[in-house]
């Protein structure tokens, strides 16, 4: 096969995206182009899957080559991205129908696909960085075309990701310095002091792309401000795929991360904190999309936890959880989109009783919610069990935190489902109908995928995930029911506890929405929640405050400096100038005398310099 085919998944969506922006304003045209491009991209991804290709073209010198590497892992990510890209495009045809900025939306969508393909294929850190930053651009554009607040949110996303990308850039420089090469597949560094620093910097880039704490705060804002298909595609699927892909690459290939390393503990800690804090925030949300977006953050914690354990079972679990999460979370967002499209709002207080009106949406929601909560036999159950297994092996505390996260996840989805689909229908929701077929198809496909990946979990595990680790597995297989019965029993107990808790909450407060309010208003937690809702813990906001303080301070300094520049220095120069001019008084005898004296000084200098 011609090696140039590697350029296709990058160039094709990119050019299609450019065409969408440049093309005529007619809707059919842009929609047609983007659907075809997404479909062709999916086809190419199928063709590429299972192949091993390497491409290298010297470019800028200094080891900066255009080099691509297609192997099992990258082909898998490209395939997944292409699949989600196609489905979300299909969904958007109906969802975005009446929205503005249609051309831009599809353009950014396709360009994002192109950049993700590029970033995944890249085998050179600089090329990777190029696509990585390109993704930032399309991310910014895509959020910015949302509602009125979107531009502010887009700026926030841009700043947060920009800062972390800067860290990554430094990390790349450091890595290249330590390894002596920029080619990813040739780097294999032991974790010394410098390498640890490089690892942390690269890790910051990766987990920030995946949306982990503390670089998460733009995601909930984007959920309310940006167009919904964006949420289903970018933060829920593509960025997780890319971020976790890169995290796996740096932990598995580029650095020799072992479970003895303190970096492993660091990663796991980040994962656990992300799980707990994000799910706690998710619990109390009163907006469909916002709640989902917190879960999108929370679930990243499982993946980071899984990869951070640095033992095969954890890594397999993390990666499996990555693809599972992409599936159920994008499907959940899509159901959110249907609800928004049909009911006109995503505010849970105004929703209710939609289950009868939208049965297909309800079924898809139930399947995916069960999946995310880890109910057998859906896919989330299997990946979570793998992660639990690994977490328990590394430390009881990690396991307990993970299982607690699971409990809260289940509780919040019970609340969400109860509030949105059951209970009394509010007066505005009387005429709500089922979503159009084009929106249902993607949801059904993904929901079906969730079941297939769960029931026949050996299919993805054997063919997609396990080959990534290859020889490191030592012939172990993780398909089928998890081996550790105790863990399963604990998981079931947790789920049952969540249901009991929900019933208890409903009985106490009287409605599904308020089932978890007792947590929200618990003595200590309420204060924390209040502050969190005022974005007290948002690093971006803290950063803004610090920046404001610094700028106020520098304003003062600036005035002082300005005084030095404008008044002091100018006055000094003018005074000096007048002195020199006074010396030039028209008397040539004085001039000559001064010249002779200075000539004598020059002679002295000469003799001194001798």
């Amino acid at each position, binding site marked *: 096969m011609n090696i140039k085919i590697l350029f296709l998944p990058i160039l094709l969506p990119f050019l299609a995206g450019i065409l969408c922006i440049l093309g005529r304003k007619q809707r059919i045209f842009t929609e047609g182009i983007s659907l075809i491009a997404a479909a062709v991209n999916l086809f190419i991804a199928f063709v590429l899957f299972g192949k091993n290709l390497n491409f290298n073209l010297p470019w800028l010198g200094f080891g900066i080559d255009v080099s691509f590497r297609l192997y099992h892992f990258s082909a898998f990510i490209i395939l997944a991205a292409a699949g989600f890209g196609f489905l979300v495009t299909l969904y958007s045809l109906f969802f975005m129908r009446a929205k503005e900025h249609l051309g831009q939306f599809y353009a950014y969508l396709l360009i994002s696909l192109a950049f993700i393909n590029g970033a995944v294929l890249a085998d050179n850190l600089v090329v990777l960085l190029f696509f990585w930053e390109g993704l930032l651009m399309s991310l910014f554009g895509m959020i910015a075309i949302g509602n009125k607040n979107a531009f502010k949110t887009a700026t926030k996303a841009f700043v947060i990701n920009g800062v972390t990308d800067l860290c990554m850039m430094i990390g790349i420089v450091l890595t290249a310095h330590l390894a002596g090469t920029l080619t990813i597949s040739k780097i294999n560094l032991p974790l010394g002091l410098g390498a640890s620093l490089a690892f942390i910097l690269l890790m910051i880039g990766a987990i920030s792309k995946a949306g982990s704490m503390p670089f998460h705060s733009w995601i909930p804002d984007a959920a309310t401000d940006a167009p919904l298909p964006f949420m289903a595609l970018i933060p829920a699927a593509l960025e997780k795929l890319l971020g976790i892909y890169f995290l796996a690459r740096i932990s598995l290939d580029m650095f020799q991360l072992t479970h003895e390393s303190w970096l492993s503990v660091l990663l796991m800690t980040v994962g656990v904190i992300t799980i707990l804090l994000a799910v706690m925030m998710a619990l109390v949300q009163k907006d469909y999309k916002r709640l989902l977006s917190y879960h999108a953050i929370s679930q990243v914690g499982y993946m980071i936890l899984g990869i951070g354990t640095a033992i095969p079972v954890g890594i397999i679990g993390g990666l499996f959880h990555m693809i599972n999460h992409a599936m159920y979370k994008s499907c959940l967002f899509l159901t959110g989109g249907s609800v928004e499209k049909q009911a006109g709002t995503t505010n849970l207080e105004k929703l209710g009783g939609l289950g009868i009106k939208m049965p297909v949406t309800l079924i898809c929601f139930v399947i995916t919610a069960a999946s995310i909560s880890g109910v057998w036999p859906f896919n989330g159950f299997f990946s979570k069990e793998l992660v639990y297994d690994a977490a328990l092996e590394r430390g009881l505390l990690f396991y307990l935190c993970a299982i607690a996260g699971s409990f809260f996840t289940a509780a919040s989805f019970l609340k969400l489902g109860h509030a949105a689909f059951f209970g009394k229908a509010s007066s505005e929701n009387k005429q709500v109908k089922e979503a159009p077929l084009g929106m249902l198809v993607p949801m059904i496909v993904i929901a079906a995928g969730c079941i297939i990946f769960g029931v026949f979990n050996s299919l993805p595990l054997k063919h997609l995930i396990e080959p990534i680790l290859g020889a490191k597995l030592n012939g172990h297989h993780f398909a089928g029911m998890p081996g550790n019965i105790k863990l399963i029993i604990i998981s079931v107990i947790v789920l049952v506890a969540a249901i009991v808790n929900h019933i208890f909450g409903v009985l106490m407060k009287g409605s599904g929405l308020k089932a978890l309010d007792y947590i929200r208003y618990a003595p200590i937690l309420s204060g924390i929640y209040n502050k969190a809702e005022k974005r007290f813990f948002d690093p971006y906001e803290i950063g803004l405050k610090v920046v404001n303080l610094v700028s106020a301070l520098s304003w003062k300094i600036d005035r002082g400096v300005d005084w030095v520049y404008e008044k002091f220095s100018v006055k000094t120069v*003018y005074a000096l*100038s*007048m002195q*020199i001019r006074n010396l030039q008084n028209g008397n*040539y005898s004085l001039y000559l005398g001064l010249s002779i004296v200075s*000539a004598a000084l*020059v002679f002295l*200098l000469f003799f001194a310099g001798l």
Partner: protein
Amino acid sequence: MSHLLILVPFCCVIILNLPIRKVMRSLAPVAAIVLSLLQVLMVLCFDCHFWQTKFGIIGTFFKFNLVADKLAILMLLCIGIVSFVTAVIGRALIKERKERFDFASLILISLSALNGIVLVRDIFSLYVFLEIAAVISFILIAFKTNILAYEGAFKYIIFSAVASIFLLCGTALLLITSGSTDFSQINASLTAQAFSPSIVLAVGLFLVGLFIKAGVVPFHWWLPDAYSEAPSPVSVYLAGIVTKAVGVYALIRVAVSVFGMHKSICAVFLLLGAITIVAGAIAAITQSDFKRMLSYSSISQVGYIILALGSGTSLGVAAACFHLFNHAIFKSLLFVNAAAVEQQTGTRDMDRVCGLSQRMPVTGLTSVLGSLSCAGIPPLAGFWSKLLIVIALLSTGHFVYAAVAVLASIITLGYFLVMQRKVFFGKISEEFINIKEAGLGIVVPEIILAAITVGVGIFFPVILNRFILPLGG
């Protein structure tokens, strides 16, 4: 065949003074323009056959010791360009036919004198040609025969005479210590022996003489008076090339080919260069007379050249020569602008004129280019030469001097902005509401010079390796 560069302009003057004066009078300005253009063209194809040819009769009859190396070629180019510009604007600004004839003849003579300065390889012949150029300068400054011009000319005469005496003392002492006046022989003898006090005395006297001629700061007193009171075309000529060839080029030549870059010479260059830069720039900032401000700016830029020379490396010499070339171009341009302003408004007082750029767009635009180039703003030519100077200084470890160079370039930008704001920007005053753009004879040189400045800046990467770096030798 560099004899012709000296002989042809001189013979041309003699022919122009033949008895058929009616015809010759109208021919003289054209002859000056044509000859200077010819020189530019000859220099531009400097690797052609012409330079190697030994013309039979002339070659045997005149046994001149002339060498045209890279540095000399660059100077010849500057001389050609600036003479061309001066001849053109002289033709435009001087109305009376007889004066025009005299002016053109003097330009022709000075062409031969300046070419002589550039090409000679003997310190006494150097002195001879320096004196010719100086005498022409006296006459040109006093060309308009008003009292202020006389005053400037008289001060220049006194300083030039003293400088010549220093030069001659240096020559005599060098003759004693090395037995010759030839560049290469002196150089050989100086490198053969250690620097004894007598040699230091000789070298010092020679250098001080050249410092006075170049207008380096503690010896600069004559320069603003002479430049600012001379007629406009003469200011262009003096600031652009005459004092540069007479003083600065001679300094570079003597420092490079005769004395060698001795440590103590470099130290003196560095110190005086820094003082010159700062003092010139500071004195320029409060001037209200357009040409006087430009004169001080000229002093300041000469400081850069000396400073670059003081770094003592071949890169420094190359940077100095490049800045010399750039300075010839942009300072001529600025003086032509000043000439245009003076011609059209009748005053040089920057506080009186205002907002001229509306009425004189070409002059305004080209003066902006010239100022920015002088202040060292990329991508104009002046930026690159200053950059090279700073690099040359940094590479020899003279961090303080490099800092001085950079900081002074801020002051340079300052006084040029003040000039631009006063003269060209803003609202035009009632007094000058009816002025027009200067005539073609001024506008065309402005455009040519601005184009050279911009072109050299933009094509700098090409020029750097081909022309500039070989200058260091």
